[in-house]
Structures are given as C-alpha cells and as structure tokens.
C-alpha cells in the first residue's frame, strides 16, 4: 500500500507542476528567485541521490563495489558515452568486482 500511495501522490504532484506552468500567469514563475531555485533544485537532488545510492546502505555509510562502478560510469561520462553505456559500464564494473571477490 505504501508503494501505491507514493506512486499516486508523486504522480499527482508531478502532474500539477506540469499543469501549473501551462496555467499560471507567467509573472508568478518568472520571478528571478523562483527561477533560480528551480534551476538549483535538480542539481541538489540528483547530487544527493547519486552520493546516497553509491555509499549508503540503510542508515550506514559503506564503501563497496558500487563506488568503483559509479567511478567507472563517471569516466564513461567524461568520454561522452551515451546514457545507456554509462549505466552499463557502472553495472558491469560492480558485477565484475563482485565476481573477482
């Protein structure tokens, strides 16, 4: 039930954000402060999610094969690899390290 609740509420919130842009007068969203925060929000969230998914496990911080996988994915990004390649390189590296251990 928790999952369906999260899916429903998250979907509703995301839809309302899309609809707000089409419905609200432009001046509400065009304020410099609102624009600035909106540009920074994805950066903060994506950076936090990247870090948490790499080194946290429940309420602990752990270093494991994920870190090596993400580092390999970062190298692929620097080499301008497409999205699916970045993800595959990260997964493959982590899987390989686990096999070798």
């Amino acid at each position: 039930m928790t999952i369906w609740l999260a899916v429903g509420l998250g979907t509703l919130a995301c839809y309302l954000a899309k609809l707000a842009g089409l419905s609200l007068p432009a001046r509400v969203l065009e304020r410099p402060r609102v624009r600035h925060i909106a540009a920074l929000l994805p950066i903060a969230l994506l950076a936090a999610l990247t870090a948490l998914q790499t080194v946290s496990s429940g309420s602990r911080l752990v270093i494991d094969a994920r870190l090596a996988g993400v580092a390999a994915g970062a190298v692929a990004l620097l080499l301008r690899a497409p999205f699916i390649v970045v993800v595959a390189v990260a997964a493959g590296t982590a899987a390989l390290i686990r096999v070798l251990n």
Partner: protein
Amino acid sequence: MSPEHRSPILRNALAIGAATGAYALSFGALSVAAGLSVPQTVALSLLMFTGGSQFALVLTLGAGGGWVPASGSAALLGFRNAFYGLRIAELLGRPRGWRRLLTAQFTIDETTAMALGQAEPAASRYAFWATGLSVYVLWGAGTLAGALGAQLLPDPRALGLDAAAPAAFLALLAPRLRGREPWLVAALAVAVALLLVPVVPAGVPVLVAGLVAVAVGLRGTP
C-alpha cells in the same frame, strides 16, 4: 506544414524516443529490483511520465524510505517541468480545456527541447506532439520490457544494478554542472545528505538536500 518540413522533425522525434526507450529499460529493471511490482513500475511510466522523478521515487522506496520522502523527492525533481510548461504555453498558444490537460502530461525535457528548437509555431506544435507520442510509447514499452526482464533475474546485485542506479543519476546531473554555483550546490547537497544518513530515516536526506538548493537560491538571487 509540408511533408518535407515534417520528415526531419519526425526522424528526430523517433530517435529521441528510441534513446529514452533504452533509458526506460534501465528504469524498469531498477524499479523491480527496488521492490516495486511490474504494474506499479509501468503505472509510473504511463502516469508520472517524467524520468528523473520516477528514478527518485523508486530508489527512495528501495532504500527503505516511506511514502513521504519518496513522493516528496519525486515532486521536487518534477518542479522544473512547470518552467517547461511556461515555454510550451508560449509556443503552442496557451492550450485550453482538455487540450491543456493533455499538453501538461507531455510537458517534459525532451518535448520542450524539440518544440523550442523549431523556427515557426506550426513546426513547434508538430515537434511537441511527435516527440511526446514517440517518447510516451517507447518509454512505456521500454519500462515494461526492463521490468519483466528484471523479474527473471535471481539477484540484481550480481549484475551490478545497484551501481547502475547512482550512475543513472550522475548522467542526469553531469550536463547541469556548468559554472561555480552548480558545483557548490552539488557539493553542499552531497555533504548534507551523507552527514544525515546515520541520524534520520531513509529518504529524508534527499529532501533536506533539496532545501540546500532553496537556501542557496534565496541567498544568491539579486
């Protein structure tokens, strides 16, 4: 619009759809690995239909977060679509009634980029809908295929899927890291989130990291 104007737009729309379809494969697989069912996973792609938010939601749930941080982080990431909506309203001439409700659902990164890239209003409208439909169909199909595929896997960790998730976020983040302020916000968000991991419930560190963006935005805007 003449056919010779339409066909390059259509080609681009299909190419973008194919790329997001591949991305959807990884979303479907990660969602099932995070503990969502196949119907829940596909429902997200068809109803929420905005990739970053979907990833945030399923991975927060997978990390043990409750419905508040899960839907909250999805909502915060989805906030940017409001700004795409502004541009789309200008380009498509402020749609009304049921048209507006439908246009809203398709207002995402890809459709906005394609609509903005056209020289005339008719081409923008065509690009918006062609890209929207192409991405919607292939995003849904890719999600279903990825979710069904992941169900067959004995242990997602053995395939390194738990490293694929943060790599996906990193790939979404990388193009936004231009200039000093984005790097500062990213570093602060990471530090705050990691410091909070041992002391607050799962999922909450992401929401607090979002407040970092709000705080920096409020301070730094003239």
